[in-house]
């Protein structure tokens, strides 16, 4: 199997790696680059725990090949806070206790960030459908939806 050399940008930094042709971006992030914030809950695009943003588009990194990242810009949970300044979504998730076990949280935060970028004032229904690709088994989603609503309000005010 011939390795593929990839030059890409991750959270604003230039990154180069060699990966196998069938290796997913999720595997590259976790196993080659040590970015374990994206989680594998299913490996088939059904849970959203591995969500990342590639060239401004929300995707499941388990459904992207590492080779495909060539020349792209990838955003992961590790790049969401600015230094010690949490993103408003991160802060609101903490304040609302929008996480219990926390395994789905990185995926939810990335998906919510994408949602608010496209729709800064979503209704409850828009939030619920916008986040339907992210499974949470602990919270019943109530506090997650409230945290996103609250973060949206804060971000509009900012």
């Amino acid at each position: 199997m011939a390795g593929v050399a990839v030059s890409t940008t991750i959270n604003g930094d230039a990154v180069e790696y060699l990966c196998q042709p069938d290796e997913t971006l999720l595997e590259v992030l976790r196993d080659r680059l040590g970015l374990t914030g994206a989680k594998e809950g299913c490996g088939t695009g059904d849970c959203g725990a591995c969500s990342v943003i590639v060239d401004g588009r929300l995707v499941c990194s388990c459904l992207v090949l590492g080779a495909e990242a060539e020349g792209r810009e990838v955003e992961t949970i590790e790049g969401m806070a600015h230094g010690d300044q949490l993103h408003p979504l991160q802060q609101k998730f903490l304040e609302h206790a929008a996480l219990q076990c926390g395994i789905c949280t990185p995926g939810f935060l990335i998906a919510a960030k994408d949602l608010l970028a496209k729709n800064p004032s979503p209704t409850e229904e828009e939030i619920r459908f916008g986040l339907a690709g992210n499974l949470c088994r602990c919270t019943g989603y109530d506090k997650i939806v409230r945290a996103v609503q609250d973060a949206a309000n804060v971000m509009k005010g900012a």
Partner: protein
Amino acid sequence: MNFDPRFSGRKFASVGTRPIRPDGIDKVTGRARYGADFNMAGQLVGRILRSPHAHAVIKKIDTSKAEKLAGVKAVITAKDLPDLTDGDAAMYDILDNSMARKKALYDGHAVAAVAAIDARTAREALKLIEVDYEVLPHVTDVDEAAQHHAPLINDQVFTEGLEEKPAKPSNITKRTQFGHGDVHAGFAQADFIVERSFKTEQTHQGYIEPHACVASVNPDGTADLWVCTQGHFVYRQHCAQLLGLEASKLRVTSSEIGGGFGGKTHVWAEPVALALSRKAGRPVKLVMTRDEVFRASGPTSATSIDVKIGAKKDGTITAAEATLRYSCGPYAGSWAEIGAMTAFACYKLENVKTVGYEVLVNRPKTAAYRAPSAPMAAFAVESVVDELAKELGMDAVDFRIKNAAQEGTRSSYGPVYGPIGIGPTLEAVKNHPHMKAPLKANQGRGMACGFWFNFGGQTCTDLNIGMDGTVSLAVGTVDVGGSRASLSLVAAEELGIDYSQVKAVVADTSSLGYNDMTDGSRGTFSSSMATISAARNAIKILRERAAQTWDIPVEDVVWEKGHAIAKGEKYGNLSPLSLKDIAAASGKTGGPIAGHSELVADGAGVSFATHICDVEVDPETGSTRVIRYTVVQDAGKAVHPTYVEGQYQGGAAQGIGWALNEEYIYGKDGRLQNPGFLDYRIPVCSDLPMIDTQILEIPNPNHPYGVRGVGETSIVPPLAAIANAVSNAVGVRMTHIPMSPPRILAALEAEREG
């Protein structure tokens, strides 16, 4: 240890507030490390070969080709996990479930495993292992398995709990019975009797994090295991016993856990990872795929339940009876027993009888799932209770209030209740605005009650006071949903300091004494008791140090609001010493200050919940949407109310999924048809409404702060609440869970055709 656990009725400063959890930032930044997020030098990748057959004799396994593949460092079969269980039947079952010994007992049963330099090589190696199976007839349905002509899963099983040992083996491992009074006499007094049979399908806990571990066994017999688990001390015991290791030489570290709900309460692949590491001489990481989680971890029972309840015209229940059959997978369990105990626990009954049958089937080994066995029994009982209320012409809530258990009632499972919350939850529901909200066409409202015991158990905690006056709290119960925040609050409360001065961590098995796992809603109940005890022990030392500083008798020093105070007029000029002051001087007053506790947290308080649910049913498709949901539950005392609400909401959501769409679907070939989140349909965000909660606080007399468990009860009422709501919306009584659209549509069509 001289610890007084009785409820004191004190006023709280920290307990009951809602601070941010200590592990929060790690979890929103992706830094928190879960089972699969840890690596060791030289680590190999482990993978497991699983049976494609539901029931088959393993005649021969040839691993020679796999062993020769470049990059493969170890291949194991059951031979590499010799039986060291010494007659311990439960441990033997866990061993056999980890790696099939003679027979594969379900689709997904492990038969061999490899460790290789990478995942691709490991996958290739699995394909090179040749297993010669003799396929046997199988049975996956609980009712079919209970028939005398069903394929026998284990010919050594003779039903226990019968007056005489049966002549022939069967798939029924045990019969259990509970109750009191005379149900025949009771039914004779009844004016109305409702009798029905119900089925519920098998569901999975559905935690988003697959089982994952990194195992490292050294040649000198020491070993490390990093693993996502609800109980690392229990995993240590299991693994040490199965691998022949000395418990104290096996250090188990619990990673952050990405959900468990009962499914991570005993070992599955961990002994395999350790055996691979031992054979390969290198660390091995083993992570289950989602497919493996569904096929080969521990889902809950499928059930078949008959319920009969009789009442007088005035609404008094005269007798209640239930027969419950629960599937256990291919190994003995006690799941019907719990169902038989919980079934009628909400009610005051003169005459009650429940009988449970444990049934073996060719499905994965049943594990606990949040208030295990109770939701199915409650579904059957609360459906019949609703129907009986209708026959009597009584309001569903009033009928339940009339028959609700109270302090002094003999429970249906035996003991007499102390102060309990079923009555108050029903009264709260009766007065809740949700009950009066208008409904539209095709909408219906249902309600139902639920019960769970709550557990205590062995618990050990260390509280260390740093020289800067901050407190580190080491607990041994795994934090599954925010307990580090709750326990930090408890430490702050007892010491009289601010929450921000305390940080709780979960210690590994080498750093703390034994702790039972986080199950049975015991985490906060038990560890808060141990934390209070540890804090009181620390306070004793703090008082001694203050007495020493002041050179007065320790009896004259009291601890109030985080300060040592010299009591008595003669000490009028001594200003109080804060915890920080005493800590700062500790190096010169006797060294580090710490409080330890080891105890058995017994006396857990039972808990009750009543739920209200509105649904809308599409009569043309059978599609059901939950449009409003309210949980009312007794917490005893809500230490961190936000996380208590979270438990209520999460349990309700899981119950909603179970009620409407989640089920294990087996083909005629005995293979699981839907081992993935695509077709095992747990609720998504757009499926649910906000879930309102109301926390009642009826103190548990056996805990200093009145805490009961809160984690599990909330999954008990939803199945019945939704079934009752569907019945009220479209007039069909659903007796088969999940109430999937095809089942509801078929019931509606049958109703229309009369």
